[in-house]
């Protein structure tokens, strides 16, 4: 789970809705895991997953899930204090780097020389935004 969300519940008795909320997180976890494996498989052997299911469909499912979580959260005024799990974030970063290196395969050397510094800048900015500005531990 990339984000460890700490809740301060404004309502005590949420019953069914809170159960749904928790189940949506489980579903999100499953979908993200499935997406990571799918994208790794696609990187290694293009077409191995997309021949059966389009990756955009998994992304749509993840988006709907996140939207549903957000809707429940807003409806019941659940405030979430976000903190990053550094272990998970590092693991995801490692996966992203692997996919990035894989995408450079068979690419023109000159193009690589442009893409690599540009990507490094984007990653640095993302790092600043996500890790430093959030004030996470």
């Amino acid at each position, binding site marked *: *789970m990339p984000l460890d*969300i700490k809740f*301060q519940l404004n309502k005590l008795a949420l019953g069914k809705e809170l159960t749904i909320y*928790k*189940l949506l997180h*489980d579903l999100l*976890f499953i979908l993200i895991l*499935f997406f990571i494996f799918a994208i790794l498989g696609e990187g290694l052997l293009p077409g191995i997953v997309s021949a*059966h299911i389009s990756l955009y469909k998994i992304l749509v499912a993840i988006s709907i899930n996140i939207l549903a979580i957000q809707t429940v959260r807003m409806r019941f005024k659940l405030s979430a204090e976000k903190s990053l799990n550094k272990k998970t974030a590092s693991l995801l970063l490692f996966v992203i780097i692997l996919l990035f290196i894989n995408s450079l395969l068979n690419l023109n050397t000159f193009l690589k020389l442009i893409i690599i510094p540009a990507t490094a800048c984007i990653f640095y900015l993302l790092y600043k935004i996500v890790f430093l500005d959030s004030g996470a531990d």
Partner: protein
Amino acid sequence: MGFDLTKEAVLDAKSRRTYRFLQAAIYPAAILGAVYFSYLILFPSRTFEFDFTSPNSSANSIISPRNELGIPITNGKIEKNKNMFFDAALVGNFSKAIVNFTLSNKSDLPESGSVEIRRSYQAFFYPEGEPIEFKDKLSESPDTFNDGTLISYNNGIYVVSGGFVFPIDNPVTFESMGYNWNNVIPASADEFSMYQKGKLFNIKAVHPDGTIFSVAEDGQYYIIKGGLKHPLLSANTALAWMKNDPIMVSKKGLEISSRCEIKKNIFSARQYSCELPIENLASLTGKDYEFRQNFSQNVAIDSLSVTFKKVVSVANFKTTLREMLIRIILRYAPGYQISTQ
């Protein structure tokens, strides 16, 4: 305490029981889904289609439905007791091929019909032409490559034929055509500029003119020219033609076949199917499966599809893993020689 991603969201006892029950259903369902998905990947099926109502559609993956004379069939009409041929190109070995077709509303309904399948290369299925005894050296330009030569330029690999260079789309296509990486000749910019660039050479492509086949069983050589395969009368003639290693083929590819009788679909009066066991074709080389279909009545087909399937078995599991490994090696180290044993 079980697995909980939102520990801070505390449930009352009754809701917690409900949550645990539903959670216990979601995760096994996800695992089952993953197992099913693995099954789809490890025991894959491939479907090829042709829609005779839009014969020029790019979605048509079945290769050139044609009659006995090689004339394309675009309207789906097949005369009584005449054959329709078509091909499907794919990598790997499968257990069965299921042919499905739907007849048009105006078509007669056939009482019987059959489908036959063979495996080799499309060009090797060509009819045999006049034998060639000698090579005409005078017609050959010293500055150009022979037809059928493999050349590399920039990051691409091309096959030369008839004044064109055809770019090969990926290493899988290269391997599936039976080509050898050691035969690729680097071309200079000057040499490359002497040719026009032809269309992309993908797995559906036919070996071009100038390709030489060598029959494994008797060492006979054939050269492809103008839609015919011409026997080369002696090994010396073959050597004069050859700049590459020949494409190895098996005569059994022309002899061994599998056959099935068509059956009417229970749920639809105009849908028919036929299941061909093709495990006996697994030992043969060639990416192309040639189908021959005939009926006891004049028929008009609207749509045609072929599905190749693998049955669940340890042997197929091992084969798929091996094929995956080969594809990975081809992707990351295209020139690496892979043992086929």
